[in-house]
């Protein structure tokens, strides 16, 4: 299973709609970095509105993909993290510090606009 990555001007948009297993998550990490390289995207929004479980492994993959993209020169914003997911992550002891987030896709795009000055 592969997560579709859409291109919109200089941005890449991803909406994760499937239950993430480890393999899909790792494949997505690779696919996204490849796509950033290919399209020279400067910003990425990963929307998690439909994701109802983020465990420590998925959190690590998401945190890593933000750092990896950053190394390449693309800014990633995670959007739409559900209340139950936010509570569970913090209780689990995962804080995802230094990961840019926004309430929804619209706010995420706005954040990219501001930070990238485009």
């Amino acid at each position, binding site marked *: 299973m592969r997560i579709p990555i859409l291109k919109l001007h200089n941005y890449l948009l991803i909406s994760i709609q499937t239950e993430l*297993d*480890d393999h899909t998550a790792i494949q997505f990490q690779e696919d996204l970095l490849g796509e950033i390289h290919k399209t020279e995207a400067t910003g990425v929004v990963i929307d998690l509105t439909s994701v*109802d*479980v983020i465990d*420590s492994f998925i959190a*690590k993959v998401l945190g890593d993909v933000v750092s990896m993209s950053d190394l390449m020169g693309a800014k990633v914003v995670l959007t739409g993290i559900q209340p139950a997911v936010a*509570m*569970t992550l913090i209780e689990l*002891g*995962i804080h995802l510090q230094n990961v840019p987030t926004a309430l929804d896709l619209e706010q995420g795009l706005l954040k990219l606009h501001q930070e990238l000055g485009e």
Partner: protein
Amino acid sequence: MMNSQSCVTILKEWDIVAARQMGREIAKNIGFGTVDQARITTAISELARNIYLYAGEGKISFNIVQSLDTKGISIKAEDKGPGIKDLSQVMEDGFSTSGGLGAGLPGVRRLMDDFDIISEVNKGTTIVTVKWLR
């Protein structure tokens, strides 16, 4: 008192997803709200991944448990893996041997209400954890 049991054998990565889907379904049927469903599902995911990573093979089973005034979901994770040498160490926040985030067992204990672990080196590990409906 138990009145229902279901279980998932953990052998491959996808079984982690199967275990948490089954657990979420049971939690939903018992009447847990979305936040507790997320807590329970995440706890199952962590326990199933521990089996997959450290023991290679094991089993997650679910029971609906009943107390005098409420009911809950009991999750049992058992494997015949290498076992844990120092239990107090793995129950410390930040301890991890897999290079993960170190959320592991202390995180699971925080997400659930009751948490019991029995482990013997070279024999295996059994964890039983319960979330009660409030």
